[in-house]
């Protein structure tokens, strides 16, 4: 309270009642953690449209090569590379990261730990502004000479390092600059999250009373901060190679292109868990509320999350088994990679165990949370094929990898996010979303999702390699049935995209016209449900709550109601 309040009073925002803030002050220059959360959420949603449009264009090219794509036109080889690069970069760095960590972290942390704002509200505002600049730079790169960067989201040099190789000199530099700025934004945000949770928890809230989603965002922020340094260093070297012709990654000048891969994946693999853990946290909140169950083995979940985080620093080279690194290194990185399956699997077991003995309500948020578990499980087990070095020789850089990756990342970046949005919508906007529309959107997303990626598993096993814009050049990849599978994946994608309209309609109509939400429509225990819906500036107008117990006391035998909010006194 003290630090937050002091910084806050200084910023002059507590005299809120004296004047009505204008549009810019309210929506773009706010230091309120909830507004900054919304800024990230809406920017992330806008960027998801970019990510969705790019995948639409290149999947159309794969299914119907050479045909003019409605709304885009003909996809050339260089367009294709720019589209896949932008799809990957945008979905990870400008959708998953901002929505899961920045939007939900900003919105939820102060509410769930029972304080009035982040410890550093102005740092928080700066974080979003830098993020916005990074997104603008990325989008602007489409309009420079040569177009957007087309060297894939992993940006391996020498292709990414020299304009004569990539043919997108300006686009490459803008891409790198955007990524580096985006990381600075999240670094600032991460500092804020960790400090706030350390210092501003409500009176009585001990470490093990902190809701799992908050813990997960904190662990993820620490992972991010610890892993991002090498990548930013690498990005600076690559910018120098591009613009000042240094030779960090150029073998002709004594450099080594593989060095980049180490720096990139040293960040890149923990990054998977940076977004996975918050998603796991969201799911923990939702399955406990809608099965009216205490989280099975709270501390085990926490320790496995920490264990996953630590292990994730020792697996990076499994992306490089066939990249020309010393082949003996596979002995180590196969072991660490398969070991990381243990804590992650354990987390999934715990969640499945939580359902036991529950009183399960299949509301829209619960459907999303359950779907996360079911689909992520497939993503997890298919990873074993790739971590096992011998099998990776065949699967590396095929569509099998793409399918595996999307069975983990789609649940993280979309399924968990839809769970979070449908669950916290009443708190965020003070209105309920429509359940029927919610369920139509759910089934309209989940079914096509599987029909996109199951064909891709098959195609990968049959030898389809990645980042090819027209398979007709490869006789072995045009055998009977293969193009049909590509068309099936694309049609499923079109279906999935079409159903997102249902979500957008539900979201924006409910925002204006949905039935008013009460303070605690789901009968949940955590502190955000003590605040009014939506919470005003300062969050808790009736005074900051006291905490008496952990967040998951559902179905307690000593109590008539099946929930026991953290702030309610009682033996």
């Amino acid at each position, binding site marked *: 309270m003290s630090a937050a309040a002091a910084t806050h009073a200084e910023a002059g925002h507590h005299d809120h009642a004296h004047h009505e803030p204008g549009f810019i002050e309210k929506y773009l220059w706010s230091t309120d953690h909830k507004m900054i959360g919304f800024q990230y959420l809406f920017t992330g949603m806008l960027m998801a449209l970019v990510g969705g449009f790019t995948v639409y264009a290149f999947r159309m090219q794969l299914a119907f090569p050479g045909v003019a794509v409605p709304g885009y036109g003909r996809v050339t080889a260089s367009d294709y590379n720019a589209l896949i690069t932008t799809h990957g970069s945008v979905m990870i760095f400008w959708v998953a990261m901002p929505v899961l960590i920045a939007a939900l972290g900003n919105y939820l942390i102060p509410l769930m730990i029972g304080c009035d704002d982040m410890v550093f509200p102005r740092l928080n505002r700066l974080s979003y502004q830098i993020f916005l600049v990074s997104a603008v730079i990325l989008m602007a790169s489409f309009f420079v000479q040569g177009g957007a960067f087309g060297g*894939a989201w992993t940006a391996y040099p020498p292709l990414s390092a020299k304009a004569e190789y990539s*043919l997108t000199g300006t686009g490459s530099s803008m891409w790198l600059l955007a990524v580096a700025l985006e990381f600075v934004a999240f670094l600032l945000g991460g500092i804020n999250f960790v400090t706030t949770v350390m210092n501003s928890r409500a009176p009585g809230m001990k470490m093990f009373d902190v809701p799992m989603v908050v813990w997960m965002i904190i662990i993820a922020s620490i992972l991010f901060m610890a892993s991002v340094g090498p990548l930013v260093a690498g990005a600076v070297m690559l910018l120098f190679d591009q613009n000042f012709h240094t030779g960090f990654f150029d*073998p002709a000048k004594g450099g080594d292109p593989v060095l980049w891969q180490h720096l990139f994946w040293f960040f890149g693999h923990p990054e998977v868990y940076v977004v996975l853990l918050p998603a796991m946290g969201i799911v923990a909140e939702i399955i406990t509320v809608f099965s009216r169950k205490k989280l*099975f083995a*709270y501390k085990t979940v926490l320790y496995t999350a920490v264990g996953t985080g630590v292990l994730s620093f020792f697996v990076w080279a499994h992306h490089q088994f066939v990249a020309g690194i010393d082949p003996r290194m596979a002995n180590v990185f196969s072991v660490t990679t398969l070991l990381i399956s243990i804590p992650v699997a354990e987390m999934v077991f715990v969640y499945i165990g939580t359902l036991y003995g529950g*009183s399960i*309500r299949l509301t829209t948020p619960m459907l999303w949370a359950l779907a996360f578990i079911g689909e992520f499980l497939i993503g997890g087990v298919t990873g074993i094929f790739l971590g096992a070095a*011998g099998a990776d020789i065949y699967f590396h850089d095929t569509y099998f990898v793409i399918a595996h990756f999307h069975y983990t990342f789609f649940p993280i970046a979309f399924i968990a996010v839809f769970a979070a949005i449908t669950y916290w919508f009443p708190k965020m906007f003070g209105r309920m979303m429509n359940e029927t529309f919610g369920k139509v959107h759910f089934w309209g997303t989940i079914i096509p999702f599987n029909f996109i990626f199951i064909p891709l598993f098959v195609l990968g096993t049959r030898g389809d390699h990645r980042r090819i814009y027209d398979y007709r050049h*490869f006789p072995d990849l045009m055998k009977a049935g293969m193009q049909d599978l590509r068309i099936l994946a694309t049609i499923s994608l079109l279906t999935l995209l079409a159903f997102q309209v249902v979500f957008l309609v539900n979201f924006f109509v409910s925002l204006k016209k949905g039935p008013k939400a009460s303070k605690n429509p789901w009968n949940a225990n955590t502190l955000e449900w003590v605040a009014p819906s939506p919470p005003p500036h300062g969050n808790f107008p009736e005074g900051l709550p006291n905490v008496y117990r952990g967040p998951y006391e559902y179905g307690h*035998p000593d109590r008539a109601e099946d929930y026991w909010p953290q702030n309610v006194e009682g033996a």
Partner: protein
Amino acid sequence: MIDHYVPAASTFAPHIDDLIILIGAVVGFWGLLAEVVFIGLILKFKAEPGVKSKYVSGELPKEKRWVSIPHYATLAFDLLILVMALRVWHEVKLEMPKPDETVRVIAQQWAWTFVHPGADGILDTSDDITTIDELHVVNDKTYQFELTSRDVLHSFSVPVFRLKQDAIPGRIIKGWFKPTMTGQFDIQCTEICGIGHGLMPARIVIETADQHANWVKANTALAAVAPAAPAPTPTPTGGMP
């Protein structure tokens, strides 16, 4: 199973296929079991009026069993998979049988150059045969390849061999294969290498010894008039020790 769609044409290809099937069986069984338990619990414990949920902390040893037993099962099966996976890895990437012949594979934006040793079986002699986008090898002969790149990263992938290795400018990476059937198959570049990445298909032609001898004879005449391709200059590093 895989060779139904993609022929297995090298000595180690069936071993990789077996490994994939083993992993498929293990994770398929446990993954399916987890999904069945998961969906079963959802159906069994759907909310019913008047029935309150159970209060289970999951902290007691008796309850923790439900997580710790699968935990140890995961560990045991991980170890099994690891042993099998690394055995195959060692065979393909770490052991180097004595080669009958050596071929040079040079990748560049966006073509493959293959240097065959010619009639004398030795590289860097005047009878070397250099081809673009077509590699000729003899069935049942052990080959060493020397892989390099002239510009960016590429990857030498022969799906029927289940073989893949990135090419790095400035380095020569060595590897091996031994074909087990004749035929013509795709060679793919599997590392993005610029706008022509999709236009880098090549073919591998696996021939009988007689067919190959004829091919060598027909091409040696050409090689005599055209100068042999210069050997790549960089010092050999990386790859097999």
